[in-house]
């Protein structure tokens, strides 16, 4: 067998039976998408996997969870086995230009004329190619070869977790090729988009949804799942965040002040109704791989994050 055929065969084996390694986390705003992305990445890292956590929307939501002011546009170690980075489309485009054209001057000229801003804010799909491009490169990176074009050796990262745009935009974001089709018809960006698209549609990529046990976020998740499946993109877990614990309440008849007793019964009643509603909403997700996350009742800190991550490992 020639070396080349060997490479192809190995590639074939990888593409036929790949474990998901790129984990895209999405959810409606306010559901805890960033927290879950961080907890998932931390759970992989705790299990010993070299993990990269990517932020693509510049919200600086991840950094405080790891006790940092911000995340730079380069991979930095934020916990044991865990690396983090904030992907900035402007930086990515400049890096791209330098990498492919060894033309730092061109990049500076482009910046001067506002073309970097232009390209990264308006050109349809270009911004998303740049943002997902980093995830693509990191997911396929091999030691000693940054572009990931050889098939030798293990992966640099066992898992890449992306805190992705919200459910409303996720389909468009991942279906890079369709977006770019009307624009860049040829050229390296187009080629890159095709490669990214292939990865996104392969078994190596899985999209996890984050939702709350409430009507609107669940509805939005279901719509996003339908959209993603329609695009041929694999959907992984549905994380239902802020689940209220099911508690047993009996009727009490202790001799206490009647106003207090009535008010306490109202509180119990309200809680019960809330849990009932939550269960009704969960039924809508019965066909999916649901992981429930308990309501934490306090602000998310690194300790809380570790707690959720440990729970995820056991789930």
């Amino acid at each position, binding site marked *: 067998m020639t070396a080349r055929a060997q490479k192809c065969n190995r590639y074939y084996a990888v593409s036929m039976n790949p474990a998901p390694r790129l984990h895209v986390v999405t959810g409606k705003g306010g559901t805890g998408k960033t927290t879950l992305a961080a907890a998932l990445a931390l759970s992989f890292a705790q299990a010993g996997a070299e993990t990269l956590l990517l932020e693509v929307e510049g919200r600086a939501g991840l950094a405080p969870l790891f006790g940092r002011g911000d995340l730079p546009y380069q991979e930095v170690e934020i916990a044991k086995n865990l690396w983090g980075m904030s992907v900035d489309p402007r930086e990515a485009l400049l890096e791209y230009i330098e990498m492919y054209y060894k033309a730092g001057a061109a990049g500076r000229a482009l910046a001067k004329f506002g073309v970097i801003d232009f390209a990264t804010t308006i050109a349809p799909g270009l911004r998303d190619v740049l943002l997902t491009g980093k995830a693509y490169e990191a997911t396929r990176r091999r030691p000693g070869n940054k572009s990931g074009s050889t098939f030798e050796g293990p992966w640099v990262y066992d898992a890449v977790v992306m805190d992705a745009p919200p459910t409303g935009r996720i389909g468009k974001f991942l279906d890079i090729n369709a977006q770019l089709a009307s624009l860049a018809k040829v050229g390296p960006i187009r080629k890159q988009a095709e490669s990214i698209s292939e990865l996104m549609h392969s078994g190596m990529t899985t999209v996890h949804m984050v939702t709350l046990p409430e009507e609107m976020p669940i509805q939005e998740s279901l719509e996003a799942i339908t959209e993603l499946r329609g695009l041929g993109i694999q959907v992984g877990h549905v994380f239902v965040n802020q689940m209220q614990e099911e508690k047993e309440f009996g009727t009490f008849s202790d001799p206490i002040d009647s106003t207090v007793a009535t008010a*306490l019964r109202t509180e119990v009643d309200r809680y019960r109704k809330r849990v009932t509603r939550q269960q009704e909403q969960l039924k809508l997700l019965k066909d999916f791989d649901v992981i429930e996350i308990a309501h934490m009742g306090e602000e998310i800190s690194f300790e809380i994050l570790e707690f959720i991550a440990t729970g995820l490992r056991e789930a």
Partner: protein
Amino acid sequence: MIRELLNDPETRVILCCGSGGVGKTTTAAAIALKAAEQGRKTVVLTIDPARRLAQALGLNELSFEPHAVKDVSNLYAMQLDMKRTFDEIVLAHADAKRARTILENPFYKSLSSSFAGTQEYMAMEKLGQLLASNEWDLIVVDTPPSRSALDFLDAPARLGSFLDGRLIKFLTTPAKAGGWALTRILNSGIQLFASTVSKILGGEFLADISAFVAALDSVFGGFRKRADETYKLLKAPGSAFIVVAIPERDPIREAEFFIERLISEGMPLAGVIVNRVSPTLAPLTIAASKELSKSASPELAAALELHMENLRVKSNEDRLIKAIKCPALLRIEDAGADISDLAGLRSINLSGNSL
């Protein structure tokens, strides 16, 4: 706060703003309903209503013009379609041929449907149109679910500065035309730019962009002027901003940023509405609850446990809410379920206590 606003016949525009998922649309609809029931001809402009609320307002995918809400006189509702609003502006400002060039350009398609800020810009445009029509006693606007509440104020400027920017000037100014002192350095920069863009994205990219920008340029003069005028209207007496939040850290932080910003821009801030506040709890402190549980039955002890947890949540909420600095504040209790009909909107107590 709301009562005073609605009792003042000068109030013509109410804008509800805040981060996503805090109940802006519901709040806007409830305010509009109340105004209509007081006899004012009111229109509520929504951006992306939840399905069942949209149904309650009689909205469907095609409701891009104000239409009467069933069973409520004086109340009208409409949805914003940003692409359509953008198309209308282009059609109004360009001749037929030029308009076609713009509408068919791939960059336009992207700008009109996905550029961050277009939605905000178009909401302003629509508001301007509604005001100009002089048909309404009151217009209630539900601002777009921006990533950050501040986008609403910044987007028009951002879109404007982009379309006025150096790149656009360069692309629309023929190289030989005067005005541009093309030094050698600048010139080589341009060539480098053109060749790099062509290499990375293909030659057509540059042709498309030039065509688009040239065509849009003629439209944009009028476009920007309109946006400036609408922006001024927001500052004028008769406009009022209501910041909507829920008692959680991030939405409250967003609300605080927004309040500061409105004040520094001289925008008329009417107050803050905090939705989903914990309801009134049993009159029993944590200490008293602990004391009582010592001799309580297991059932009562469980209820007290829940009560103490509720007290902790509520005191956290109170702490967050008290930190908000604003002229007026209205707390709306958690209804326990999504509001999705007119009866639900009516049940929202908008005349509750301020502060």
